[in-house]
Each structure stands twice: as C-alpha cells, then as structure tokens.
C-alpha cells in the first residue's frame, strides 16, 4: 500500500491522487451518529439521533442541532468539538455579512464560506481536517435549501440526504420515500421513520424550517 506512507501528512498527495487524511476524516464521520435532512416543498427538516453515553448525562446540555441565523440551522455527524468550532465561525461570518450589507446572509453564501473554512484546514501546515460533515438547512428568498459540507470542503445541494452510521440503508429508504412535492409534515414523518429504520433509537432531535423564516426545534 503505497498510500500508507502518505497517510500521516495532510498536505502531501498520495501517488493515487488522494489526500489520505481527508479519507480518514470521512471515516471518522462515517462512524458518527446518524443525521439526515429532507427538503420539502414548503420547508426543510434536519434530524439526528441524540444518543447519550449514560442516563446520568444532562441531556439539555448536549446540543446536536444549532442555529447559525434565525433562518439557517445545521446538524452534524462526527466529532462534536469540531462541530462547535465550525458553528462559532459560521455564526461570526453570518454576522459580518449582516454588518456590511444590513441584510441576512443567503444560505448559499454561508455554505460557501463555511466550506472555505473547512478547505483551509486541508491546506495549511500543522492542522488537521475537521472530523465532521455538516447538513446545513436554510430558508431564504430562493426557498428551502439543504446542503451537505464534507471535511474536504466540498459541498452539495441535496433534496434528501443522510450521513454517519448506517448511511446506505438510510439513503435507500429516503430514495424510496422521497417525492418532489412533499409537504413539511410528511417530511418530518419520513425523517423519523428513516431514523427508526436503523436500530433502536433512544432520542431524536428534529429541526424544521418553514416559510416566514421560522425555525422549530423539537426533541422527543
């Protein structure tokens, strides 16, 4: 395996043209808790499983879904601490945009800037990539939007997507159940079903964005 010689340096390509550290980061994401998102016709919902290591943990202190602006939310799969750092940076960028233009940042712009931060950490010396993939859900003048951002810094717009453990099952399930003109309630229902598909689920956090730029966080 010629690749293994290159697996310790982030900023060196391996002979097969891969940055092995990013592959490892994706593996870290793949072993994180499942999260998924669905874009409906009139809103977008993102959800994740909130599995706590013990019943003694105060569940209100663990926040797996966060808002970046009143109309943009984000969920992750992977390392929690990396997620917190990205949320902090993204919130700051959203506020800088507002300060300059006195206008709330469009979802695409915030996704672009978050992805740029993640890419920075794949090209600088002495740092490692973020061990999270983000699902950013937002509602702006262009309607509901759902984006996935990977540790490499690439981002994709999805109609429905899943990340983390059990992702292939979840994606197959979503492919079957997704329709273009889904209403938000149907989308929430489908999300919960998809999460339950995998295995025994203890706690689900659900976050949905609807028109009028309102967002609701539901935990059950």
């Amino acid at each position, binding site marked *: 395996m010629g690749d293994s010689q290159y697996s310790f340096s982030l900023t060196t390509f391996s002979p097969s043209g891969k940055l092995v550290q990013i592959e490892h980061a994706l593996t870290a994401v793949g072993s994180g808790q499942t999260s998924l998102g669905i874009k409906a016709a009139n809103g977008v919902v993102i959800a994740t499983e909130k599995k706590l290591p013990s019943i003694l943990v105060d569940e209100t202190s663990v926040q797996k879904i966060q808002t970046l602006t009143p109309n943009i939310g984000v969920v992750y799969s992977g390392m929690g601490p990396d997620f917190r750092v990205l949320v902090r940076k993204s919130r700051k960028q959203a506020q800088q945009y507002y*300060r*300059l*233009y*006195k*206008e709330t940042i*469009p979802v*695409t*712009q915030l996704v*672009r800037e978050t992805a740029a931060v993640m890419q920075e950490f794949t090209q600088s010396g002495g740092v490692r990539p973020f061990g999270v993939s983000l699902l950013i859900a937002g509602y702006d003048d262009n309607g509901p939007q759902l984006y996935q951002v990977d540790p490499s810094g690439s981002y994709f717009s999805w109609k429905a997507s899943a990340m983390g453990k059990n992702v292939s099952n979840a994606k197959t399930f979503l492919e079957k159940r997704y329709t273009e003109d889904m209403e938000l309630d149907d989308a929430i229902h489908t999300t919960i079903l998809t999460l339950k598909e995998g295995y025994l689920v203890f706690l689900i956090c659900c976050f949905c964005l609807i028109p009028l730029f309102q967002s609701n966080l539901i935990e059950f």
Partner: protein
Amino acid sequence: MSLDSDRDRNAKRRWLPRAEPKGWTSLDLLAEQEAHLRPHKPKSLCGLSFLDSAFHSRHRTRRVQESRLQPRLLREPAAPAMSIFEYNGSAVVAMVGKNCFAIASDRRLGVQLQTIATDFKRVFKIHDKLYIGLSGLATDAQTLYQRLVFRHKLYQLREERDMKPQTFASLVSALLYEKRFGPYFCQPVIAGLGEDNEPFICTMDCIGAKELAKDFVVSGTASESLYGACESMYKPNMEPDELFETISQALLSSVDRDCLSGWGGYVLLVTPTEVQERVLKSRMD
C-alpha cells in the same frame, strides 16, 4: 505695533480651517498652502496639523514677514481659504416620483475658481436600476466609484443577482466609515429602484452617516440653494415628465446661485422600463 496685532488677529480669523475634524488636517492639501500665509505664533499648535507645525520655525517668521511686505509676488495667486469639499465644486440632487426616480448633477470641474472642464461626470451607474452621484473632491469621487463597482461586480458573481439599493447604501456607508480618520472627501447620493420597483434615495456624509428620505436628497457646494429650490418645487407622486421638469428647474436655479457649480446639467430619469439621460443647457458661468 497695535496695527500689526490687529492685522494678526484678522488674518488668523480668516485663515483658520472651518469646522473640520482635527484628524483630517494632516491630509488637507490646502494646509501647506495656508501654512505659509498664517502669521507665525509660537506654541499655538492646537487645530494645526503635524505638517503645519513643521513650518513654524524661527526661519519661517522672517519669510512670512517678508511676504507681507511684497504680498503679490511671493504669495500664491489669489485664493480665498476653501474647504476641501469646495475645491472642485459640485451639485447633485435626486428626487422620487411615481414608480420612478431622477438623479441630476452639474457638469463643472474646477480647480478652486478656475473652470477646467464642462463635461465632468458625477453620476455613475452601478446596475440598471441603481445609480450613485458623488459630490465633493473629484479624485475621491472617481476612486470611490471604482471601489464600489469592484465590490458590486464581485457581489454579482458570488450571489448571481444585483444588489438592492438599501444593501448598496449600507455597503457605501461601511466603506466610508472604514476611512473614518482619513476619509474620502465626498458625499454620495444613492438612488435606485428596489423590490417591486419602489424608488429608493438616500445620501450620506463623508464618513457614512446615512440619511434616508422619501422626497429628495441633495449634496455638493450648492446644497443650501438646492434644499430651498427642491423644498418649494417638489410634489409627491409626480409622473416622469413632470419629475424631469422639476428636478431640472431645481438644479439649474440652485447652481446659478453658486459660483463653484454649474456649466450645464445632466439629468437621469429611471423608470421600471427605461432610462432617460438628458444634458441641460444653462448659463455657462
């Protein structure tokens, strides 16, 4: 001796800069010109810039006194003390009509009292429905316009849409405030059609204090006359033709009262479907 001190006091009153924040004088290009005209007074450095203080030396005193004996030969050609905003002369006005707006400016470019050009452009296009007029120092107006076009073009590429007038006004305000302690010496007038073709106008001072208005905004050396003319001639909800007449009359009558602006007028009338540009013939003085 008493005559000397009288003259000193009068001279000082005439040449002190008028109501400018202290931070600017180090960039004031007239400071150098004025410095050697100012009578030497040791230790009165408050209100004078670092450059000025460099001129206050013992040698200076003698030269200043000599120059008073032969005023015409050694002094600069007759130049009353002018604010930096009055160096080039300008007049810009924008008015709101019914689903349309008009923005107009004079066409004179001068260097203090001498007219250099009579076709100077002060109103610039940002995009089809957004225009900005920049009064004040001509070089700053041109540079600021270049910077704004740069920012807007990048915005267009990134966000794949044109900037709304309100957003653009916030951007201009932020850019001007960035240079709070060494500002661009211009006052912008921003006019555009926003969502649903709702006209939007605003003006700001040279460090970015926005002033929104529903009827008209003015700026430039002729601003005081412009305020009076617009106030009396303006009516709400004017049709494009009437708006054009009104803004032209207001501009021409105001610049006639101001020696530093005039030499023709340029009026731009923007409706949701078309843009009309017209050049006005006026008194060429």
